[in-house]
């Protein structure tokens, strides 16, 4: 059941695609929300009975996306919120992380090593980033669910990810 989040780009996704949201949660964009969001999603992933490999990848991707909203979205203004939406869409698990901050902007002065976006793209089967200056960023990660024709070996390949 969809829990409405007003003025959210979530609405578009869920309405257009006519899906049941597993979870919509809103957190303040503060560091403590990073582990909270991860623990919260872990509960939902366990309910879904997903395999460990996938759970690890979703937890990492979600953590990176929420941490980015906390670290980068509200640099120049008042801190706002970060919202997380998780749902199963026919053959995929979709995780959306959204903020209403600056929109994606490079921060070459940052202390990060810039591993967050590549990691989100490594762990997921598809990474989408939409944003608008001063209207926030929406990160959408899609994970193929195993046991579906053709998608099976994508996950297999990823599990066997090389050591260099």
């Amino acid at each position, binding site marked *: 059941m969809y829990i409405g989040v007003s003025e959210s780009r979530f609405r578009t996704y869920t309405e257009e695609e006519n899906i049941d949201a597993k979870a919509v949660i809103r957190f303040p964009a503060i560091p403590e929300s990073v582990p909270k969001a991860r623990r919260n999603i872990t509960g939902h992933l366990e309910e879904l009975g997903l395999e460990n490999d996938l759970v690890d990848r979703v937890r*990492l991707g979600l953590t990176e996306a929420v941490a980015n909203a906390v670290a980068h979205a509200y640099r120049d203004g008042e801190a706002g919120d970060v919202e997380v939406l998780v749902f199963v869409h026919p053959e995929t698990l979709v995780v959306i992380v959204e903020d209403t901050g600056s929109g994606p902007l490079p921060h070459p002065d940052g202390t990060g090593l810039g*591993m967050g976006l590549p990691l989100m793209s490594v762990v997921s089967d598809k990474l989408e980033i939409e944003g608008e200056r001063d209207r926030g960023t929406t990160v959408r990660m899609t994970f193929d669910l195993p046991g579906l024709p053709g998608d099976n070996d994508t996950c297999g390949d990823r599990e066997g*990810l090389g050591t*260099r």
Partner: protein
Amino acid sequence: MAPAHEPSNGTATVVRLEGEHDYDNSPEFRARIEAALDGSQGVIVDLTEATFVDSSVLGILVRAMREADRRGLSYAIAVNPEPADPVRHILELSGLLGVLPLAGNGSGTNDSAAPD
């Protein structure tokens, strides 16, 4: 939470991470590893009891490696050898298993960044 004095193993200080570490609590880890680099001839980061690390932790591990290298200190990471270990999995996904110097399982003083 961090012990005032990290246990030291031979000449290397062991920095042990337990549980989940991410953007929220990684500044603590950064402080511990920096203190260890300042106060000893080498650092072993023991991740065998850690259950989650994110890119902020990975960044600290990579920076500490570079710093140890620069100062001629030994540096090694101990990771649970189980393929299903979530932290090992994260290091694999991030490509760091081939970059970070791994210590012998959970104990060794493998000096992958030995002083010259």
